[in-house]
């Protein structure tokens, strides 16, 4: 009897392994001939067609569709379809017209006067004019609105003056070269004053803008539906189609589980899905039924910041030892299988002033690293961990949970790589980075990134006193030279000089080993071949104005 049972168990084990293998194969080797992906068309190269409904899977649920109150990248992907901005950032980093046709800057650089388009209407019929612009920006700085990132982006905005119906003047507290660039961001998109006043707190569930798509419905945790705005004729220069969109509708499906999300594209249930895990990137690329769209996000790459408020990491030599000992190349290659680019600078490629001379500037050198720590007087103890004055050499490494983009795995590898150097890395994965990092400052190394349209994003991370003075910067920098450069970068109006300033800043940060830049996050979309002409703005957010579906 026992023998019989064992045999049965063997068969079942074999059957289960087979099931696994079959399942695994289904991702890797789907034949190109007609499987049941109803939306996939064999012929490539058809021409743009009017109509159709695009289904696009998002990785998480947006928090709100009120641009002024949201702070999530995933929300921006929907928000960008509903709202337009005053100006647009062009691929060469210059600013182009959108809802504003032209603008002038006062000699003291403290006020911007915008001439507005006169043919624009919000989707609820409210006219778009200077009053509407004033309402929007005043709404953001009004504490009642509980604005999130928009408030930081709009800084140092003070007030608006309506000059005439289609001319508005924005006044700033202090000059800021980042201001115009920030106005291009979707989070400073323009909402209908009528709708925002009427719906108040619930505006985020009943959004109204001037964008190429109108809001239809939001089924929580299921889908958000938007439909074409037929009146649309004010598209920015970064898309080809200047009129109403080709698509009738876009359904944003919310599918948090990555295997399910990619599976929905492979089974033909949705046209496209965002954030493709590295292990699926190769199989999507290798499958002729699907395409992989990929664009690097712009701003600050995923970076490990030293907390310079804590010894010994306030010493550049100690930081340099870590910089030389961590093999970032092997981390990025191991975890992302060649699908992510390694970061070299505090800024990501593609942003104004990116310093490409930093690329390949640092090679791992464990001997040199050991030598630096020896010089500082950290001697190895019995357990191999270095000690000085009875204190062990440790790094409190904090990262936010959950394991977004395998960040927790980065922590584990850094821990392993620093052990031979005699550094004991304690990894703390916490959801509550607000308390641990921002309030208690209880970390030596902390990982973060930021999507940003302007290199001034560095200010918040490296300046001694962040503008709000409420919090200290993550890096805990207190470097007068760096402060001065960041201040100059904020106000320098000559673009050439500004680029030079930011190149110096980046070099300074790396030379002083203030950070370990790790990877540039690519926004990836797996899509059926039927989906054509998805474009991306300079920050890496998708634009659906030109999108059409092959029939």
């Amino acid at each position: 009897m026992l023998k019989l049972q064992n045999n049965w168990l063997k068969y079942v084990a074999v059957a289960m392994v087979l099931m696994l293998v079959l399942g695994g194969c289904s991702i890797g080797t789907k034949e190109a001939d007609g499987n049941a992906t109803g939306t996939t068309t064999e012929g490539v190269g058809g021409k743009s067609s009017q109509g159709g409904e695009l289904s696009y899977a998002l990785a998480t649920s947006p928090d709100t569709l009120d641009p002024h109150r949201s702070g999530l990248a995933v929300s921006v992907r929907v928000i960008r379809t509903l709202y337009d901005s005053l100006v647009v950032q062009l691929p060469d980093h210059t600013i182009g017209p959108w809802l504003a046709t032209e603008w002038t800057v006062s000699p003291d650089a403290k006020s911007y006067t915008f001439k507005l388009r006169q043919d624009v209407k919000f989707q609820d019929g409210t006219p778009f004019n200077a009053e509407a612009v004033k309402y929007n920006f005043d709404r953001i700085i009004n504490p009642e609105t509980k604005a999130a990132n928009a408030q930081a982006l709009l800084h140092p905005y003070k007030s608006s003056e309506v000059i005439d119906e289609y001319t508005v003047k924005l006044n700033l507290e202090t000059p800021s070269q980042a201001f115009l660039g920030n106005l291009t961001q979707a989070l400073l998109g323009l909402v209908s004053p009528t709708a925002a006043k009427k719906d108040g707190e619930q505006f985020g569930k009943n959004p109204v803008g001037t964008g190429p798509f109108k809001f239809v419905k939001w089924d929580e945790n299921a889908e958000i539906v938007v439909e074409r705005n037929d009146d649309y004729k004010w598209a920015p220069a970064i898309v080809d189609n200047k009129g109403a969109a080709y698509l009738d509708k876009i359904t944003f499906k919310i599918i948090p589980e990555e295997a399910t999300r990619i599976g929905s594209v492979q089974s033909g249930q949705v046209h496209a899905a965002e954030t493709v895990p590295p292990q699926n990137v190769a199989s999507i690329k290798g499958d002729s039924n699907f395409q992989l769209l990929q664009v690097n996000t712009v701003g600050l790459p995923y970076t490990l910041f030293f907390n310079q408020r804590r010894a010994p990491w306030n010493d550049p030599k100690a930081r340099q030892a870590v910089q030389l000992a961590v093999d970032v190349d092997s981390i990025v290659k191991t975890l992302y299988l060649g699908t992510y680019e390694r970061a070299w600078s505090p800024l990501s490629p593609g942003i104004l002033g990116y310093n490409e001379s930093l690329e390949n500037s640092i090679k791992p050198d464990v001997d040199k690293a050991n030598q630096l720590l020896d010089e500082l007087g950290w001697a190895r103890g019995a357990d191999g961990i270095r000690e000085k004055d009875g204190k062990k050499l440790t790094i409190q490494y904090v990262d936010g949970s959950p394991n977004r983009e395998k960040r927790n795995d980065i922590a584990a590898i850094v821990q392993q790589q620093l052990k031979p150097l005699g550094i004991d890395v304690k990894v703390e994965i916490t959801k509550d980075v607000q308390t641990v990092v921002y309030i208690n400052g209880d970390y030596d190394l902390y990982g973060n990134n930021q999507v940003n349209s302007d290199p001034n994003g560095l200010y918040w991370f490296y300046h001694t006193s962040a503008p709000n003075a409420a919090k200290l910067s993550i890096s805990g920098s207190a470097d007068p030279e760096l402060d001065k450069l960041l201040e100059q970068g904020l106000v320098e109006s000559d673009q050439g000089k500004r680029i030079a300033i930011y190149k110096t800043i980046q070099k300074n940060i790396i030379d002083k080993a203030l950070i370990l830049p790790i990877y540039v996050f690519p926004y990836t979309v797996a899509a059926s071949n039927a989906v054509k002409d998805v474009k991306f703005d300079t920050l890496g957010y998708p634009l659906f104005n030109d999108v059409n579906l092959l029939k």
Partner: protein
Amino acid sequence: MGRSIITRLFTSLFVVLGSLILVFCILYLLPSDPVLMMIDPSSATPETIANLRHQLGLDRPFYIQFASYFNNIIHGDFGNSMMNSEPVLPKILKHFPATLMLTIASSIIAVIVGVLLGVLSAIHRNRWIDIVARIVGLFGISMPTFWTGILLILLFSIQLHWLPVMGSDGFKTLVLPAITLGIVGAGFIVRMVRNSMLEVIHEQFIVTLRSKGLSERAIMYQHALRNALIPAITMMGVLIGEMLAGAVVIETVFSRQGIGRIIADAIMAKDLPVVQGVVFFSAIIYIIVNLIVDISYTYIDPRVRRAH
């Protein structure tokens, strides 16, 4: 018998009160600050934080916070979501039907598969059907649902294109999640029914029935099964709890709507009123189901009826 039901109702009320206190305390004692989760800490001033905390009543002493929470709950007010100010109870009620559908569908699968296999395996002990039943039992109890779910998706949706990968609209989208969750329940029931059938089969009254010349079939299905089902019904009460908990994972894997998804999101966002609301709501459902199970004994098992 009427008195026993009233006693049970009273006990249940105490359990409800207990769970309410527990839910409130656990979340109150958590070390992190919900206010800081709501705002961007890089741009907020201490005054903004203090104002918001005051607005939400989080600066009041523990017992006052609890008293006002308790008072609101009694009046059907579960509070508003911290993320988007949406009232919690309507939100739960809106999403509960989807979870209820999933729970019912998987319970049906669990009961049919579980009882059938359990009885067959006890009757045909050590034959192939018994071994299949034991494997189903082991599989159901030990396989993590997200893993089973993804395997089913790979096979039935991506490979065979029979069923949709995700969604919560219509019967087709219910099949895979219900099977995934049903397997878990079936695992528990198979083991329970098999064991109690084996016990019953060896009891004196079965021997008596045999000696009276009843057919083996009649003995098994009319007499043995009826007795063996009693522990299985108790099991159902516990299983409903398992299913509600399982919904958290299943609804995420299959991208379904439901209260499991809501609580998963709320926990991530530290949206206290929503977490409290869903946990308390689930506790009430669990208590009601177990009350029904308790009462139903009196009808199924004459011994319980006679005891009162």
